[in-house]
């Protein structure tokens, strides 16, 4: 049976439905943001694994070659000469249907007969459910899913024009694949046999990889059998290891998102703390009566914690449901960023893992209970007789201010120590960041007292006696205003911190793009999208461009994926003209400069993130995996780069030609001798027309495209920032509103003594205005400190980038304005309510 104490407490909650609703809303929004990000992250991770599972099936290992294809003959030798039966070839690449050129399709070429027995539930086995005969016997035959067929409006026997590396080629739909499980949707796959895929991708006689099914206990035996038969540069790699390495790429990005969402929860925790503190403060007389009746401190603590538990439970459940809806929306943003930056997501499937639900419940409940613990203890520790006295609470709060300030300084010092001494630990970096927020929050009540003096002078000057009264009330009710101001300050500071960080990042990237893209025009093969970024230029094209009138100099460039030190990185092949050399800015280099050894092919250069991640420095030797085996070269320079957090290795074209079988380049940077770039573009297009369709783009357009991708990447960050602000907004409005409603009696006394309802509204608005403005002003230094830590500690540790610190006053102004607006809005309802209620009614009620 429910005890009377519990009953009294529950009825108290139900008697204040607006406060209850706002408190639950505050908790639920905090939890929802965390759940949404967790689900979006988890779903993106699971989507990648599903994509991998679809392509790989149950293959345990894969044989591939760094930045190159495998000769088809190798597969024949392994199967015939070594007698390996549990292997299967695969050709893969990206195409697009001309009807929908913006959607990249993953083309997979398989040999269904080679792998029928052991591929498992993968994509290849699906071929067996369709018309296999047609697939194997008809040229240009492909299988697509029923979903894709419906999207493209085609059926069996219809032809589709596919945009491929070699131009537009027709394929014929030989069959449709039915998929029962939505999570394993095959709508972004096109399946063909090996030869059709080779034709479409213009790689006749070449495979992308050979998949192996090796029982775990026979792994070393297989390695033994293979050794000596594999050409140099080829590696047999476990699929699981490869997947993990790929997933690790996005680890920092996902951790950052999680931390951002936790920031929303921290803001939420302040608000829960505020709500619970207020709930306790509001009931001090009631708690005093209970203490007088013999209710012990522990019983009081338990009652308040039980309330918090119920609020937390309601908020968490609501937050969980909201989070699932929100997560579904965020998944699009997260997976698009993943696709842009990290790995292919041919399948995007939203899922709600039980673990995520458990995490959300635990986090929501723990956050609420932790936030409620202090007010619960505070209420219970007060002497029984003093609980009845309001003045006692305010006096004790005032007495606590120096202690809080001391604790704040101590926590800030500790945060500094953690940030300085935690090396490269990202988690400890976040720990330091959260301590910084806590430290500043602890200093807030003290700062509020210091600001009260000037506020009083200004208030009296501009608003007369109302201004004086309002500013005095802020410090007179410090037990409530202190926490509310701290909560609002943290929320606004978070907004400033993240805003300045993103803006600084954007500024750094814009500067870097301006320096790096210093050619006038860039020439690449025609691409329909990023899916076939590895298209190369025809031999002879470079020579042809150089002869065009108006072309000054030409630099060539190629980018290849490279597995380096266990991380997928990028290999950049460069033929650096002096103009290209001037486009690179170095963090460190050899005394004689980085380019001398580079140009002679006796050194390489690496990007800052790669150097940071692996602790590499100038003159260190780097083992570069090449198709011809390992190549050790010294590092001649470390350059700034924001193009890839995975890192880049820069080598000279001469090394590339020596060690890689495909010496083609992928793009050209053209420096013009003429200001008329339109005419020059036309001339170049004419000069190379018979060789290859090319795309010539001015550097300005590339810069704009790059910035558009940057902004797209940070859409999710800005959404989270907005959500954190929303959490704060709701919480602060509720906290301030509750605070004012609680003082109804006091305001009614003022009304009874002759204050008009307009003056009372003015008084309440001025109080909230002072509070909002104080929180906004205090949020500026805190927000800038947060931004500094985010830029120089968090981003550096997560991505290895050095960014410049730039503050847009607009961001700061917006944030402060937001604080003031939230605070003023909070005062409207109580002012309206009090204006409508005769003071006698308020004064009569107990």
């Amino acid at each position, binding site marked *: 049976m429910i*005890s*009377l*104490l519990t*009953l*009294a*407490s529950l*009825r*108290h909650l139900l*008697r204040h439905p607006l406060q209850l609703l706002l408190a639950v809303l505050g908790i639920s929004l905090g939890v929802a943001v965390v759940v949404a990000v967790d689900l979006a992250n988890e779903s993106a991770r699971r989507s990648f694994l599903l994509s991998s599972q679809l392509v790989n099936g149950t293959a345990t290992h894969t044989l591939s070659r760094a930045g190159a294809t495998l000769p088809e003959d190798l597969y024949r030798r392994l199967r015939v000469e070594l007698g390996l039966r549990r292997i299967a070839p695969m050709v893969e690449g990206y195409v697009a249907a001309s009807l929908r050129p913006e959607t990249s399709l993953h083309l997979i070429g398989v040999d269904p007969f080679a792998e029928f027995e052991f591929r498992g539930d993968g994509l290849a086995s699906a071929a067996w459910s369709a018309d296999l005969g047609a697939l194997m016997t008809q040229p240009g035959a492909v299988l697509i899913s029923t979903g894709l067929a419906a999207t493209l409006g085609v059926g069996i026997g219809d032809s589709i024009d596919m945009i491929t590396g070699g131009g537009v080629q027709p394929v014929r739909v030989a069959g449709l694949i039915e998929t029962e499980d939505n999570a394993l949707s095959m709508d972004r796959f096109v399946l063909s046999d090996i030869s059709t895929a080779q034709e479409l991708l213009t790689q006749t006689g070449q495979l992308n990889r050979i998949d192996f099914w090796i029982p775990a206990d026979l792994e070393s035996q297989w390695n033994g059998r293979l050794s000596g038969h594999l050409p140099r540069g080829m590696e047999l790699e476990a699929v699981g290891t490869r997947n993990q390495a790929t997933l690790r790429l996005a680890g920092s990005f996902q951790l950052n998102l999680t931390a951002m969402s936790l920031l929303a929860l921290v803001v939420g925790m302040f608000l829960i703390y505020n709500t619970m503190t207020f709930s306790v403060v509001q009931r001090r*007389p*009631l708690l*005093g*009566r*209970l*203490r*007088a*009746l*013999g*209710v*012990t*401190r*522990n019983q009081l603590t338990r009652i308040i914690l039980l309330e918090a538990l119920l609020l937390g439970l309601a908020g968490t459940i609501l937050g969980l449901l909201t989070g699932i809806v929100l997560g579904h929306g965020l998944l699009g943003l997260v997976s698009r960023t993943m696709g842009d930056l990290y790995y292919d997501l041919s399948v995007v499937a939203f899922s709600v893992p039980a673990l995520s639900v458990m995490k959300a419940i635990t986090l929501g409940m723990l956050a609420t209970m932790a936030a409620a613990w202090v007010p619960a203890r505070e209420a219970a520790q007060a*002497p*029984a*007789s003093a609980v009845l006295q309001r003045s006692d609470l305010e006096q004790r709060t005032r007495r606590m201010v120096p202690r809080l300030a001391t604790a704040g300084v101590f926590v800030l010092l500790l945060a500094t120590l953690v940030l300085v001494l935690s090396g490269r630990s990202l988690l400890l970096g976040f720990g330091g960041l959260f301590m910084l927020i806590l430290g500043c929050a602890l200093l807030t009540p003290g700062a509020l007292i210091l600001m009260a003096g000037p506020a009083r002078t200004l208030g009296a000057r501009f608003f007369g006696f109302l201004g004086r009264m309002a500013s005095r009330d802020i410090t007179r009710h410090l037990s409530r205003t202190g926490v509310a101001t701290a909560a609002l300050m943290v929320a606004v500071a978070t907004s400033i911190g993240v805003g300045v960080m993103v803006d600084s990042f954007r500024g750094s990237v814009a500067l870097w793009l301006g320096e790096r893209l210093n050619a006038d025009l860039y020439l690449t093969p025609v691409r329909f999208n990023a899916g076939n970024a590895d298209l190369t230029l025809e031999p002879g094209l470079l020579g042809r461009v150089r002869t065009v009138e108006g072309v000054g100099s030409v630099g060539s460039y190629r980018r290849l994926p490279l597995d380096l030190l266990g991380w997928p990185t990028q290999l950049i092949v460069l033929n650096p003209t002096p103009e290209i050399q001037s486009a690179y800015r170095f963090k460190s280099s050899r005394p004689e400069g980085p380019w001398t050894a580079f140009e002679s092919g006796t050194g390489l250069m690496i990007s800052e993130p790669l150097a940071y991640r692996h602790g590499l420095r100038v003159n260190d030797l780097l083992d570069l995996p090449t198709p011809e085996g390992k190549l050790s070269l010294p590092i001649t320079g470390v350059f700034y780069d924001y193009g890839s957090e995975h890192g880049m290795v820069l080598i000279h074209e001469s090394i590339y030609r020596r060690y890689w079988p495909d010496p083609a380049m992928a793009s050209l940077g053209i420096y013009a001798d003429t200001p008329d770039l339109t005419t020059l573009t036309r001339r170049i297009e004419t000069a190379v027309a018979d060789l290859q369709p090319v795309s010539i783009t001015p550097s300005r357009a590339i810069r704009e495209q790059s910035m558009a991708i940057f902004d797209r990447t940070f859409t999710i960050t800005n959404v989270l920032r907005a959500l954190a602000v929303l959490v704060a907004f709701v919480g602060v409005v509720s906290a301030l509103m509750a605070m004012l409603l609680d003082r109804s009696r006091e305001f009614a006394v003022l009304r009874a003594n002759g204050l008009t309802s307009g003056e009372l509204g003015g008084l309440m608005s001025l109080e909230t205005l002072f509070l909002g403005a104080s929180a906004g002003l205090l949020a500026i230094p805190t927000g800038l400190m947060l931004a500094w830590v985010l830029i120089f500690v968090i981003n550096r540790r997560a991505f290895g980038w050095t960014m410049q610190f730039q503050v847009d006053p607009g961001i700061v102004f917006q944030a402060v304005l937001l604080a003031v607006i939230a605070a003023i809005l909070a005062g409207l309802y109580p002012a309206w309510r009090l204006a409508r209620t005769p003071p006698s009614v308020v004064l009569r*009620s*107990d």
Partner: protein
Amino acid sequence: MSDATDMVSLRGVSKSFEEGGHPRPVLTALDLHAQTGQILALLGRSGAGKSTLLNLISGMELPDLGEVFVNNTPVHALDERSRTLFRRREVGFVFQFFNLIPTLTVLENLLLPMELNLRTDADRARALLTRVGLADRAGSFPDRLSGGEQQRIAIARSLAHDPPLLLADEPTGNLDAETGEQIMDLLFGTVREHGKTLLMVTHSQELARRADRALILRGGALVDALL
């Protein structure tokens, strides 16, 4: 030790409060003895320390010096938790502003002290409500009652768990004269009927005259009132 017949015994009790950084003495070497079944009225000016005296007797505050015995329990020597449990068991309160729990019904307000003492007895609670003339308001919440009715409920509540000692802090201070008179009849009647000891703070000399003994708190010490 206290006298065996004393329900309340205070010896050499001093208490001061800090105000503006300076101690302000309220009670100075105060002695008080109230026998079982006795009704004692405490008079004195506002701020004289009457409520502080009740707080010391109930264990809500501790003396700076001296001893407080209630029903032979050395309240001054108990830790905070023991004092709370002592208060729960031995003391019933009647406040000037009633101090009922607004979120509990009238009946539940009476049941609360019983529940805290693990002796819930709804029949006894209803009997007490009948005694104070409010049996028909058992399901009402306190804010639906008049001041006089609330104070009658407060008296019933103070007796609900059958404590030997009742402390009343200006029980009629918030009521009109006629209602106050009725309330005091009720309080005195039920106290005598149940054989309780009552310590009552009041400003009314008329009320004090109805007590077995009246004391005035002046200059931190108690003197017999000549009424």
